[in-house]
């Protein structure tokens, strides 16, 4: 989209529709980085916010959770929801890691962080390879040419299977978890959002998830197993059981954020490889390159596009005066194209190194699942590179209408994969 003649104040970097119809607004961000990297935005339908588009500024804000809190407005949604009830911003339906601050944030994070360290994640590698192989075996069938929707039938499956196994959720519940997740991140998407006039209707997926979690928690209290649900069910904070609302929020966060973002990275990675055929060939010739390709895919796709913080005191950033109470939106996808940090930022290069992207954030709220995501991506793209015979788009890519967590919603492909040995 050519935005060079649009006044800065009219650049749209936030409406879900723009993301759905045109993809991430990189042209707008490139102008903002150059002309007004800390920019006061007042788009119609939204409470105003500062758009932070430079890498260094996002690091500065993220490293000071005491000056920029996560509680409160942590995602930008339209002010007037099209349905009744309080807006998602005024009254978030969950209290989880992403809208908590230290010291509380650290206490909750430590309940589960031991499951996501590099060492803990490396123990999952073999199982993940098995899950991925099984999936590609089924897709390959006899090695002939077939068509499918890559997002739903491929990218969504592998990370979903891994996180549900970690949580001890049985495979027959996969479709349920997938639907709940789509309704959560697609709350502004015309295809995925739930019907209904009230907030409770629109957020009905939370009630369903809560009912299911209650069942699992009761079971794991009676019969603990070696899974994350058992850890959460029996967790205590300061000697007390974790309050139910916060427990549900954390369980829900691990469940949905534990795979949806990775699905978007895998999908975004495939689109990037299809658009950069030379890079796909490089990867096929040398599958070892997945080691660096995983981070390049996260940089390129940046599935978590933004989070918002609230200034707790007046703060000066690049000469702009942020006031206490102002919202500060961190656009990670923009930082990941910052010309001052990345050489040739608009080139997708599977061997890019170093790659200090902010696709996983940085500081207090650095992505808990970053190592799992990297492993998912490495295992996935290594096996794809080794088995791929041919691949092309069968129809145009459709994108999710979302400016929080987003990416391709549908990638119709025609492909041939080496069949199971």
């Amino acid at each position, binding site marked *: 989209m050519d935005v060079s003649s649009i006044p800065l104040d009219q650049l749209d970097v936030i409406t879900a529709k723009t993301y759905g119809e045109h993809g991430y607004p990189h042209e707008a961000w490139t102008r903002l980085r150059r002309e007004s990297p800390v920019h006061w935005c007042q788009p119609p339908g939204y409470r105003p916010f500062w758009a932070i588009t430079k890498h260094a500024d996002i*690091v500065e804000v*993220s*490293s000071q959770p005491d000056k920029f809190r996560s509680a409160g407005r942590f995602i930008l949604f339209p002010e007037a929801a099209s349905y009744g009830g309080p807006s998602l911003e005024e009254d978030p339906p969950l209290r989880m890691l992403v809208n908590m601050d230290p010291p509380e944030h*650290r206490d909750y994070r430590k309940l589960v*962080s*031991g499951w*996501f*360290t*590099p*060492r*803990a994640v490396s123990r999952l590698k073999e199982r993940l390879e098995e899950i991925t192989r099984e999936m590609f075996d089924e897709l390959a069938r006899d090695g002939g040419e077939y068509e499918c929707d890559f997002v739903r039938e491929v990218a969504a499956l592998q990370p979903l299977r891994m996180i549900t196994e970690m949580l001890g959720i049985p495979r027959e519940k996969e479709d349920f978890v997938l639907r709940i997740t789509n309704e959560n991140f697609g709350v502004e998407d015309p295809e995925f959002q739930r019907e209904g006039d009230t907030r409770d209707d629109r957020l009905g997926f939370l009630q369903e998830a809560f009912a299911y979690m209650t069942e699992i928690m009761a079971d794991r209290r009676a019969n603990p197993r070696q899974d994350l649900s058992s850890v959460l069910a029996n967790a205590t904070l300061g000697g007390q059981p974790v309050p139910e609302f916060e427990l549900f929020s954390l369980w829900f966060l691990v469940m949905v954020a534990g795979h949806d973002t990775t699905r978007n990275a895998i999908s975004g990675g495939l689109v990037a490889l299809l658009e950069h055929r030379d890079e796909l060939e490089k990867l096929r010739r040398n599958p070892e390159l997945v080691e660096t390709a995983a981070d390049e895919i996260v940089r390129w796709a940046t599935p978590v596009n933004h989070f918002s913080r609230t200034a707790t005191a007046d703060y000066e950033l690049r000469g702009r005066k942020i006031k206490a109470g102002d919202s500060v939106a961190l656009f990670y996808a923009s930082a990941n194209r910052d010309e001052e940090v990345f050489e040739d930022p608009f080139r997708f290069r599977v061997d890019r190194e170093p790659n*200090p992207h902010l696709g*996983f954030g*940085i*500081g*207090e709220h*650095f992505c808990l699942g*970053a*190592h799992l995501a990297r492993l998912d991506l490495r295992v996935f793209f290594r096996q794809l590179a080794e088995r791929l015979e041919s691949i092309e788009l069968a129809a145009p890519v459709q994108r999710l209408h979302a400016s929080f967590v987003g990416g391709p919603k549908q990638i119709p492909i025609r492909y041939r994969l080496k069949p199971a040995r």
Partner: protein
Amino acid sequence: MRVIVDLDLCEGNALCMKAAPEVFEVGDDDRARVLLERPSEALRAKVELAVRRCPRQAIRLVEG
């Protein structure tokens, strides 16, 4: 200069060890250990890289 790791933040991402193996080690407990609390000036560039690369921004350099 003095190197300080906030162990309340550290989650064993081990990028510090990659940037400055002379100064940091990540053990079996998934926590970084500072091997040289007062590294020489020759190691400054490496230590500063470790500070920048730490995903949780858990490393601080204190001058003097």
